[in-house]
């Protein structure tokens, strides 16, 4: 069976700053992989590279057998199959919730408005947002906005979801509702690559956890291994600080 996603020898620099220094990572179908690590360790950059929002310097990213980092690929077609959710939601403030969710299906997939709205309504209802369809983003709570952002990505029916610290901008009491949505997606078998600071969540939901440090995956393994018995001193240090902060 081919892997859902293969990342090999990925390097990425911003000017002189080398953010990713050789990332190798493989996701099977239906696998949920959590990326943990300090801020600046390269988690977000890695996700942005997979969604082709950042051009890479060297290496390869292969999605279901197709190299998406090849020079002449149609990036717009490939992005339709990869959903990404951002830390800051990035909803379109001038559009209603419904328009936010239907924009991609209508303009990028060419769906008729009615079809796109039916798809959006189904997803909104599933995630408890049916009564918000006509609202504008600034009328919603952070948790609702982030759930809309997830629905917006799901409306494209992607085969891979990238979640970039989706709860980091939320008030603590709103984190749970967003994590619950992601748990549901994991249970349904969505293949996901998740950058997160929520260690408890990573332990519950991930099949595998990768600890990023200074642009490389320093250690990876099952959640029980990484959180229970980390081998690398850097990983131990990182997790120790998380425990001291009362976050694990």
């Amino acid at each position, binding site marked *: 069976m081919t892997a859902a996603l293969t990342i090999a020898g990925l390097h990425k620099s911003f000017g002189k700053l080398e953010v990713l220094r050789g990332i190798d990572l493989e996701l099977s179908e239906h696998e949920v992989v959590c990326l943990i690590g300090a801020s600046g360790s390269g988690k977000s950059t890695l996700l942005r590279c997979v*969604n082709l*929002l950042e051009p890479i310097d060297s290496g390869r990213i292969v999605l279901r057998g197709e190299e998406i980092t090849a020079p002449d690929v149609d990036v*717009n*077609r490939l*992005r*339709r199959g*990869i*959903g*990404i959710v*951002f830390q*800051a939601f*990035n*909803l*379109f*403030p*001038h559009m209603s919730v419904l328009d936010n969710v239907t*924009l*991609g299906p209508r*303009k*990028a*997939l060419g769906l008729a408005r009615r079809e796109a709205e039916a798809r959006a309504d189904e997803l909104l209802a599933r995630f408890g947002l049916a009564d918000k369809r006509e609202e504008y983003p*600034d*009328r919603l709570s952070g948790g609702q906005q982030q759930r809309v952002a997830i629905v*917006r*990505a799901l409306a*494209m029916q992607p085969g891979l979801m990238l979640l970039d610290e989706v709860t980091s901008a939320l008030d603590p009491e709103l984190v749970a509702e967003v994590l619950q949505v992601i748990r549901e997606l994991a249970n349904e078998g969505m293949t996901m690559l998740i950058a997160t600071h929520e260690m408890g969540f990573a332990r519950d939901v991930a099949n595998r956890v990768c600890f990023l440090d200074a642009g490389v995956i320093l250690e990876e393994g099952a959640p029980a291994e990484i959180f229970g018995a980390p081998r690398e001193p850097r990983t131990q240090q990182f997790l120790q600080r998380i425990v001291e902060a009362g976050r694990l």
Partner: protein
Amino acid sequence: MSTAIFVALIAFAVVNSAGWDDVKQSFFDRQEFEEAFPEILSAFWTNVKIFLVAEVFILVFALLIAVLRSVPGPVFFPVRALAVVYVDLFRGIPTILVIYILGFGVPALALPGVPIGPLFWGIVSLVLVYSAYVSEVYRAGIDSVHPSQAAAARSLGLTHGQALRFVVIPQAVRRVIPPLLNDFIGLQKDTALVALLGVVEAFRQSQIDVAGSFNYTPYIATAIIFVALTVPMARFTDWLIARDKRRQQAGRVA
């Protein structure tokens, strides 16, 4: 109350100053005013027409320039460069020169198929000059939309053009409506420059009236007409700015 006293003091000082009677006679002659005003007002319709026609073209053309200036990729360097040169050129040349060059110069060439009407070239000149200014206003608006918005749109598989059209430009235009209206006020006044080509609009009509009587009251009449149009526009702009401010504050609370 303080305003009323202030105004009364100024009015008193002006009316009692030496030479006030001469000023009154040359600039504020009632009879001259009543004769000239209707003529000037009807000529002013030409200004309104120039303004409206030019405005439509400016809004579209300026947006096109602003968009061309933001096209990414090395292949499109010539396009971006051309847009920059255009803006530099037409913001640099005095409007009056553009009007002379196009309005007198081009018709003098007598090229077949090229219009020679002064009204046509007057409007073309205003469109060229104002598009350069307005494109910069648009560009400021486009730059003010956070890159994460375009990234979110692109992440859905939208093309660069679609992201601009559906996500970036609608937000950008909303933000720059007040400065756009400010430029329109400038354009309303500059329609008078088309008089230089011999088009009889409000300013030219008042010149004709003044030449007949050697009294300057028709100029004042023209000034009043222009102000009567620009002041409501200015207050409308103020109102829009205030409304945006209120909305932003409301948004922050919510």
